[in-house]
């Protein structure tokens, strides 16, 4: 798995200044970074089938499938089957009318026997398999439960009596206690397991019933370990019969059903379902990312590696496709183009008020940033694969970002966003800064476009927008061959840096005032106490910007400016300040409001700007300092397992140890379904909550992203709970495609190794 890689550690080698080439060559010579070999892995996603409102009153009871791929749901009003259904287009449930004679049967229970479905009705045990030959009069009134034994023997229970049948009819009838809720057959012992709320009894044909366990709150049981062990579910956890030690530290202990499916134990609960993993952890499936409802009623093995989970609101079919990371990338690539492209911008959040087809895209406060991240992902993709489509995607995003410059009336001032025919024009009212600060959303001043009068653009551009512009424009200058395109990028870059430096390190808005966040002037930056993050962040960012501008324009004013900030205003000291010293300050109102907790959006600004900081350092000495600063920051981020931070870290420091495994874990676990379903975890009994802390890290270990609220790179990855309704779709363009293609470009993720993935997903 260890491959030596040469020469692709940095965005740039050939055009670096002389002493840096040496430094980089040294780095490259010694670097032996791990490479993830991209073979197919099991990627899960859910296809849901919702019960109609009237069907919810039917009382759903059980679910089953057979070797033909037929799925049936038992309700108190007959059998239902799933209809249609894809990942983004949920299916429905509809009455099963395939066998007409079934319509008149009052099905009380069904069971899987030999991968076929066997039914229990008022008088018979029967099936449509085996040419319909299986048909046994069971002789019990009001039958309730059915299970198959050896050689087409069956056991039926009616609340009072058991009837043991062979194909001819009842062999034995015997009285049994009331309240048996489930019956299992243990082939190895040739015995039946009868589960009651307060005990577990066995029945061996010909022998009397035998109690083997007495307890309380027993809800269900299942066979495991190739039928040798019995696992028992209760309202407070589960235990293995014989060991009898209650396991309570599970995602949710009120267990309603257990099933061993494809070699794993699956537990259904009153709050989602979970799967026991080989390492003893649990995968937790709750919320509509996975299930139509959280109250699990039944589970069954489904067709083609799927697991069927029946809930109060319908069926969640947990599908497993074998795919490579590149397959996953292609799924997201297509989705981004279809759902998240607005005038070439990467629309980070699209709304889905009427289902998946009807995505509505609005302007986003940070169109610059999200678009830059997507744009760079496509340039990496182009460099790695030669894909003309990727190049075109990047070019279209560039056109959108370039127009942000041309739509304003001032050279060097770029817009946050723009929209066609948008007539709302708000003034910046007095006190707008305070409002923007408190609300976290920019003051919306919309102004007529400089290029088309029926367009409006959004002012009050910020420092994170500037980070986005620099990130995208630098990547174009580094990675694109087309000189005309590069010239246009350089013009944008020079204009915007020039505008900042000519205005004394402020972005001056159309009203002649600095924007709220476009401030890198020492009087603002050094106005913060030393432990306030903004002082460190702004210093780090502006030095990176100036170095980048100098590198590509060669204009001395940028270099001079940078050295002035470093030498006269302590910006090097600011950016080198250990992350451990960053914390809260009450020195002034602004500092206080900016430092009440760790700012994850700042992390994003830091990392995206590290390319300009480290790679274009004026001297090797400065570069060493920068690397130290980056390493210090990265160390603090490691628990977050963010692939993007890890990859930028190794790209800008050439560090060999950059948590590749965690990064791949991040990429694999990132959900296929990027809709904002409500996700909850803080109720879980299998996690340890940390006490309140500055970084808002909720648990010691990060939960898999399959289980947590949707994460974007400016959010807190340790968030456990979030509301949602599935009516928003976030873009994978910035969240996933950027780290993935960066990994490919850096050579730390290999090209897909086998094309034999088994993809069922429709996209």
């Amino acid at each position, binding site marked *: 798995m260890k491959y030596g890689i040469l020469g692709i550690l940095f965005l740039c080698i050939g055009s670096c200044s002389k002493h840096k080439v040496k430094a980089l060559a040294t780095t490259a010579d010694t670097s032996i970074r791990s490479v993830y070999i991209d073979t197919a892995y099991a990627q899960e996603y859910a296809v849901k089938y919702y019960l109609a409102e009237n069907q919810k009153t039917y009382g759903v009871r059980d679910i089953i499938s057979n070797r033909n*791929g037929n799925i049936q749901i038992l309700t108190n009003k007959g059998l239902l089957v799933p209809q249609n259904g894809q990942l983004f287009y949920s299916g429905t449930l509809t009455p099963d009318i395939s066998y007409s004679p079934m319509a008149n049967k009052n099905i009380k229970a069904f069971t899987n026997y030999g991968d076929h479905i066997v039914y229990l009705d008022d008088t018979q045990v029967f099936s449509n398999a085996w040419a319909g030959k299986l048909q046994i009069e069971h002789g019990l009134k009001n039958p309730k439960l059915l299970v198959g034994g050896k050689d087409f023997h069956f056991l039926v229970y009616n609340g009072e009596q058991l009837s043991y049948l062979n194909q001819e009819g009842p062999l034995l009838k015997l009285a049994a206690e009331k309240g048996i809720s489930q019956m299992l057959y243990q082939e190895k012992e040739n015995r039946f397991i009868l589960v009651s709320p307060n005990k577990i009894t066995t029945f061996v044909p010909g022998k009397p019933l035998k109690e083997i366990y007495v307890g309380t709150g027993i809800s269900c049981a299942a066979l495991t370990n190739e039928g040798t062990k019995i696992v028992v579910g209760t309202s407070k956890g589960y235990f293995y019969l014989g060991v009898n030690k209650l396991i309570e530290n599970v995602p949710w202990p009120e267990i309603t059903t257990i099933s061993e499916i494809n070699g794993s134990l699956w537990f259904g609960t009153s709050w989602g379902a979970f799967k026991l993993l080989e390492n003893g952890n649990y995968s937790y499936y709750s919320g509509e990312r996975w299930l139509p409802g959280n109250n699990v009623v039944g589970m069954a093995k489904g067709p083609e590696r799927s697991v069927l989970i029946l809930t109060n609101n319908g069926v969640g079919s947990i599908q497993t496709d074998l795919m490579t990371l590149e397959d996953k990338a292609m799924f997201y690539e297509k989705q981004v183009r279809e759902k998240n492209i607005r005038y*070439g911008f990467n629309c980070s959040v699209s709304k889905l008020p009427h289902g998946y087809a009807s995505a509505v895209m609005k302007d986003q406060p940070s169109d610059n940033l999200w678009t830059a991240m997507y744009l760079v992902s496509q340039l990496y993709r182009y460099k790695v694969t030669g894909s003309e*489509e990727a190049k075109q995607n990047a070019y279209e995003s560039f056109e959108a970002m370039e127009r942000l410059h041309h739509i304003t009336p001032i050279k060097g001032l770029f817009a946050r966003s723009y929209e*066609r025919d948008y007539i709302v024009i708000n003034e910046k009212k007095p006190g707008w800064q305070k409002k923007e600060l408190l609300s976290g959303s920019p003051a919306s001043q919309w102004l007529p476009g400089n290029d088309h009068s029926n367009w409006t653009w959004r002012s009050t551009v910020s420092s994170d927008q500037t980070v986005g512009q620099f990130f995208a424009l630098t990547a174009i200058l580094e990675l694109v061959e087309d000189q005309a395109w590069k010239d246009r990028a350089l013009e944008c870059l020079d204009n915007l840096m020039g505008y900042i430096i000519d205005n004394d390190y402020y972005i001056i808005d159309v009203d002649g005032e600095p924007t709220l966040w476009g401030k890198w002037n020492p009087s603002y930056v050094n106005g913060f106490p030393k432990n306030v993050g903004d002082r460190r962040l702004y210093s780090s960012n502006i030095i990176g910007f100036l170095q980048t501008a100098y590198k590509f324009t060669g204009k001395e004013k940028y270099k001079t400016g940078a050295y002035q900030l470093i030498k006269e205003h302590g910006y090097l000291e600011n950016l080198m300040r250990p992350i451990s010293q960053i914390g809260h300050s009450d020195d002034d109102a602004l500092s206080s409001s900016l430092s009440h907790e760790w700012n994850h959006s700042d992390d994003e600004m830091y990392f995206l700007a590290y390319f300009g900081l480290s790679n274009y350092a004026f001297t090797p000495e400065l570069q060493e300092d920068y690397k130290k600063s980056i390493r210090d920051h990265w160390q603090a981020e490691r628990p977050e397992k963010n692939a993007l931070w890890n990859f930028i870290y190794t790209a800008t420091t050439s560090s060999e140890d950059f948590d590749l495994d965690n990064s791949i874990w991040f990429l694999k676990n990132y959900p296929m379904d990027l809709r904002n379903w409500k996700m909850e975890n803080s109720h879980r009994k299998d996690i340890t909550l940390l006490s309140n802390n500055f970084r808002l890290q909720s648990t010691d270990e990060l939960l898999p992203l399959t289980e947590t609220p949707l994460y974007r790179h400016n959010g807190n990855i340790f968030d456990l709970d979030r509301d949602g309704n599935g009516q928003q779709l976030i873009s994978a363009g910035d969240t996933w495609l950027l780290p993935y293609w960066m990994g490919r470009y850096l050579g730390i993720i290999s090209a897909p190794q086998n094309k034999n993935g088994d993809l069922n997903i429709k996209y």
Partner: protein
Amino acid sequence: MRKSFGNLLWIIFLAGISCSEAPKGETAKISLPVYKDVPYLQDYSIKYDKQKDDLLLFEAFMDRNKVIQASSSDGILRTHDGQFLYPGTLLQDKTYRPMTDKNIAAMTTYQDQFVYLDDKAVLSNAWAGNLYLKHNLPKANKFAAGKDFDFLISEGQSLQYVSKNNSGWQGALSKDKAVAIKFDQKTNSFWILGEKSVTTFNPKDKTLKMIHEGRNFTSFALLDNKLIVTTLDGYFEIDATSGKQIGDKKIQLPWTEINYVEEIDGHLWFGSTKGAFMLKNDGKFNYYYGKRWLPDNNVKHISKGTDGSILMVTDKGLGQIVFEKMTLFDKAQYYEKQVRDRHIRLGFNATLVDMDNGNFDTGRLSDSDNDGLWTTMYLAGQVFRYAVTQSEEALQNCRESMDAMERLFSINPVPGFPSRSFERSGYIERLGDPERWQHTDDPEWDWKSTTSSDEAIGHIFAYGAMAELMDNDLKDRAIVLIDTLMGHIVQNDMYLVDFDGKPTTWGRWNPEYVNARPKMVGDRKINASNIIGMLQTAYHFTGKEKYKKKAFDLMENHGYLDNLMWPMKDVAMAPDDADDWSKMLSESWNHSDDEMYFVGYWGLYRYAFNDTLKTKFKEAIIDHWEIERPEKEGAWNIMTALTGTRDFDLEEAAWYLREHPMDMVTWEVLNSHRKDIAFIAPNFREQTTKEVLPPDERRIQRHNANMFTLDGGRNGTEEYSAGDIWLLPYWMGRYLGVISEPMGSE
């Protein structure tokens, strides 16, 4: 597959396989040609229905992001959901908020991006929204994109040219209204089709020039240096330079009432009031008619999708013809799933019926008169599949169908007599032929009597294959059933004798019945051919002399060898002096007999008593095949290969398998109105046209039907099983080694 899309070649290895590689039991010394199963382009359709009856659909396009949009009287629509066999819908596109307030009159694509025309401007959301060219034609409804962000717009007579980089122009057609505008990349000029004229506009010197006059034009396309102009009665070609019509108007088309024409990758695609069609390089047409392909047959617009699919706008919705690379093996995998998922009734291979407009979830599994035959054909296919792949799933499928077959025998009180079918009791009045159903001893079950000879031959075929190719309990179970059925027939003097003690109508192989038919009546030949094959099979696997003795008695003393060797070309109507029954039987060619012959050839040829007979049987089989050749029947061609002949029209068999539609729903299909096919005079074989149409242009049908039937279907109320129709010939081809395993499958 209907293509001229990729440049794939259908490679047949005439060198073939050597006999050492031939399957078990194949002792022929010659090598057979092999179809190399490389990926080809399989087409199928995804339909999107409009949601309001009064909504008018205009045009549809796909952009480089693979988004599909359609213009309509309600503005821009986009597709919602939609999979093969599960239609999606068309919903209003709300993606861009400002777009919903615009009066979009037309749309097109330029550089694979959507461009719109509203009452004020030409605009787009691509190129960062930069494209916004104002115009002065508030009722503009037609436009086309030029070379460099320039557009020609019309609102009938008036025209306007707008450009991002040039000065504009305004003008008008002298006395005509524009029907369509297209841009000619070669000459950098626009073409304007009027209702009765063709005019060109040169954007460089801003001049209009009319080059042709006529009438009733509906649409046009550019192809090479020609203009293709359509009318409601065919189309014609105009030389783009001279403006002169080239040759005659073209009316030998699938349908002449043409709404729209489009040039796609060098091919002309036509939308007519009766479906769409594409002109192939060989001058023939691929025809897309009916709900197999389109929500409605009135096709008003066609465009090429950026994913290679073709979008067709009809009155009721959008049809997207998708071309997917697959091998025959891939196709088999789809069909295998189709059969298990929707066509297994009590182990029988059944039809899904009573569906509402192709919706599977509204369907019911139907009993059939021939549950025995359709199931044995599926069963034999699974036996071949197991022999080739050792698939456990195939083996289990065999077991389950065998369960059903065995129960056909055990459920009725007559020893050795196979029922036609069985069903849970209480439904006789709702089953096929209620008068043929009988109660069993078990009050829960009924069985169907009157079993026929086609059931019998199906049973013996599948059991023969199973007895030969299975190496497990199924081998013995197959031999037991062969002996049971043939024992019954021999014991009952070569009749199938029903529960009432009387022979069934068709279960008659006794000479007094068979030889009562005049020699030219097909039944005399088919019954002789079948029973000899059945007796040979019974003798081969049981070794019981009675079967051999009976066969030779029939051949030597009753002329059955002559009967079965009777030339196919001499099979004809009974003469006027013949008995009524013979006349009734021979009114026309019986395609169900073809099916009985061919499934019977397995036992006739393979288990021939001696080489002399085998040579004769081969002669009879090839004589039969020769007369079937025009049908290009995949199953018959492949079954002919079992004689070891090198000539069995392998290419046509592969064509049949490739061209068979993925969609097995009984949609209505019409071809008799077509003007592009050569009809022939009514004849005994009921061959309607000189050349057979591809399976995906015909109704869905089984192997017992006439491949030359032009019209038919059941309005989407049924889905047929691929088990007998497609999987049997495919897996038999694999077993015989004339179809290779998949190569280069994706």
